[in-house]
């Protein structure tokens, strides 16, 4: 199927052929031909954001919640540079995006033309790949290749920079058929001999643990199904990173909760003491490993990952299996079934007994209050009141994000959208816009901090324009709480610039946007207020006024090992000076 058309028309045609029916964008001089082509069709729905960073995060939310590629369209110069944070975010969290940027006409490139910037140069380090389209002949191939590169292997963002003359030029369009990339062909099937070896190691384990991550979500819903099956077959305990929440249901009896810096006592101790760690689509991030030389010292490690550079990057493993999670787990489940191995039931029982003693520490416990709303309590109530609905959660970055991860429980993949690797404040609101576009009927909630949410607050306008009933649930502690907590732990309680001075009245702000504003500061009225939010057919900003000085525990201080956690109970002990727990070397770390 090849047709003559302009470059701008090719862009729209390629989006159609790729099934990309939703596009987040913002117009400008260098993309006007594409906007004209959008005007003249009705397959692709364009969502006009209020800032290009918002377009990138919205596309991320759309992608993560739907499993599709997120697409955005921005103009040259400032339009392109405004996407840099979102692209970097997508790169760190392995989110598939295609970002189309306008560029000045080819003959003006390099002349410091109006709104010219070196987009491919600037985005080279924050994309999986990028293209400057120099001729109309290359455009159809590049458009389809970009979708292929963004979504295959380890997903990531791809930029296509299209000069304006190429948008106007006429050429021959051809569809995505037979797009075979000559160099980029990631390995999806795992090496069977290695998988067999892994099954043998698992069968012999006395203290095993599954450590799963965002790669399970990237791999698709089948991967989560297979993971559940494997856990059921083996009876092994399982923990997950922040990015992998929902791949295994939080209600499952093998679930240990999240691991890492703010993970549970049982998850981190199981990681520290295990004799076999099975890492599945997780990248041994420093929030997980803590002090590297004390990380799970006595275990053999198996690592399943589609990106060979993830294996042995931070932690040396005994068996690396390169491949897609779903493909590898399928083989693993099959091999486990057919070999029906004799596990050491006695040892596993002993291991679970040990885990139960760790669980008894109840590391997520906090001191309840009748006077103020405890942020943990607010999340728990939000969870209880929304769990039976079709709910999607996004977050901003900070304490509220960690409390959401700890106290909101996910049963399914793709329900949890958060900025993990880059930790981008301002992610949650535009991401919620993207999620709601993908799931118009669902309940979409951005669990927010009052500081973060202001970073992309303008996207409320977008929500209103498209009648997206997103709920912004702000845990308002009047502080950049996470910063305040670190200042308490590391800098003698000198709260330098971390108080959120001159906050807006969020209720009035909501009303100014045409949304509903709700404020609640009374624990007794919290449930009703949350129900009012849920029942509103409109977008809502919920100003949940919470305890200001609450710290997020448990916490593994920087530079410490998994078995050196700070628990809330310890921090309450009068004898322990909390500022003394982190040593000088730990202070150097982030």
């Amino acid at each position, binding site marked *: 199927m090849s047709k003559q058309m302009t470059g701008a028309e090719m862009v729209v045609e390629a989006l159609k052929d790729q099934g990309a029916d939703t596009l987040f964008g913002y117009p400008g001089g260098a993309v006007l031909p594409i906007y004209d082509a959008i005007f003249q069709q009705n397959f692709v729905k364009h969502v006009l954001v209020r800032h290009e960073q918002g377009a990138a995060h919205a596309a991320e939310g759309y992608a993560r919640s739907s499993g599709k590629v997120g697409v955005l369209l921005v103009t040259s110069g400032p339009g392109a540079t405004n996407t840099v944070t979102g692209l970097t975010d997508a790169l760190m969290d392995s989110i598939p995006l295609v970002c189309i940027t306008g560029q000045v006409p080819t003959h003006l490139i390099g002349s410091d033309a109006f709104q010219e910037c070196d987009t491919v140069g600037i985005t080279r380090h924050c994309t999986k790949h990028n293209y400057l389209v120099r001729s109309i002949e290359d455009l159809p191939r590049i458009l389809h290749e970009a979708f292929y590169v963004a979504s295959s292997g380890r997903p990531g963002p791809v930029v296509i920079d299209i000069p304006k003359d190429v948008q106007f030029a006429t050429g021959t369009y051809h569809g995505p058929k037979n797009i075979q990339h000559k160099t980029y062909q990631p390995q999806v099937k795992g090496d069977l001999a290695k998988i067999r070896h892994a099954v043998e190691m698992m069968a012999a384990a006395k203290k095993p643990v599954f450590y799963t991550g965002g790669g399970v979500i990237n791999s698709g819903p089948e991967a989560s199904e297979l993971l559940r099956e494997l856990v059921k077959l083996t009876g092994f305990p399982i923990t997950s990173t922040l990015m992998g929440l929902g791949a295994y249901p939080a209600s499952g009896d093998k679930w240990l909760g999240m691991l890492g810096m703010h993970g549970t006592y049982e998850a981190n101790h199981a990681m520290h003491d295990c004799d076999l760690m099975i890492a599945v689509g997780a990248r041994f991030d420093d929030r997980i490993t803590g002090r590297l*030389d004390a990380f799970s010292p006595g275990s053999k490690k198996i690592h399943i990952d589609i990106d060979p550079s993830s294996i042995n990057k931070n932690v040396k493993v005994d068996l690396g299996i390169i491949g897609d999670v779903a493909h590898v787990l399928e083989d693993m489940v099959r091999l486990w079934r057919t070999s029906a191995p004799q596990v050491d039931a006695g040892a596993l029982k002993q291991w679970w007994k040990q885990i139960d003693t760790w669980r008894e520490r109840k590391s997520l416990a906090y001191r309840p209050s009748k006077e103020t709303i405890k942020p943990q309590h607010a999340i728990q109530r939000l969870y209880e009141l929304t769990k039976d609905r079709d709910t999607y959660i996004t977050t901003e970055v900070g304490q509220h994000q960690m409390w959401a991860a700890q106290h909101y429980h996910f049963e399914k993949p793709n329900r949890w959208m958060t900025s993990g690797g880059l930790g981008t404040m301002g992610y949650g609101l535009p991401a919620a816009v993207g999620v709601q576009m993908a799931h118009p009927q669902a309940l979409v909630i951005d669990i927010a901090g009052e500081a973060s949410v202001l970073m992309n607050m303008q996207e409320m306008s977008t929500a209103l324009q498209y009648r997206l009933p997103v709920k912004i649930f702000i845990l308002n502690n009047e502080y950049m709480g996470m910063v305040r907590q670190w200042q308490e732990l590391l800098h003698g309680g000198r709260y330098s610039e971390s108080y959120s001075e001159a906050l807006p009245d969020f209720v009035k702000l909501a009303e100014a946007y045409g949304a509903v504003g709700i404020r609640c500061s009374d624990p007794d009225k919290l449930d009703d207020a949350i129900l009012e939010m849920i029942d509103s057919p409109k977008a809502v900003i919920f100003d949940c006024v919470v305890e200001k000085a609450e710290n997020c525990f448990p916490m593994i201080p920087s530079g410490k090992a998994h078995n050196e956690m700070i628990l809330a109970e310890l921090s309450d002990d009068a004898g322990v000076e909390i500022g*003394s727990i982190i040593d000088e070397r730990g202070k150097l770390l982030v």
Partner: protein
Amino acid sequence: MNAPTLNPPPPPPSPYSSALGKSNIEQHTLSVLVDNEPGVLARVVGLFSGRGYNIESLTVAEVAHGEHLSRITIVTSGPPEAIEQIGHQLERLVPVHKVTDLTTHARAIERELAMVKVRGKGDDRVEALRLADAFRARVIDATTESFVFELTGNADKIDQFVELMRPIGLVEVSRTGVAAISRGPEPI
């Protein structure tokens, strides 16, 4: 809960950590076959600077004109774990066809070309010519007070020649960087 430890822990071992013993730093020559498209060199060089890897030498040229293939030969150094990581990181770049570590996976021949300018009179000139002869360097430019020598060899040989020229009037050196290929009938 144990009381907080007072002794700072030893620095964590990371392949990039400078604290890692200098003893296990190795030099490797990587041969990287790439699509000869705009920006590909910037991607490779940017990867090295962005991730803090060393480049001791880098050469690049098109090797198969019809197929638009270039070979980039990089001499890098680091602990073995870092070298392995560099290989994988290079493979992640979309226009990269193949990465071969010539130091570990192939018996490689390495060559570099240098041009060496020497200025001097009398005995120094005689000595320079004598040494050049011993190194099979050719004179490619001469004036009454200077020579330019052309020399090929492995990097050590060139280093040695340059050192010998230093006391007898070395002016400057221009080197191409290392090109490398594997021995025997098979391609890299």
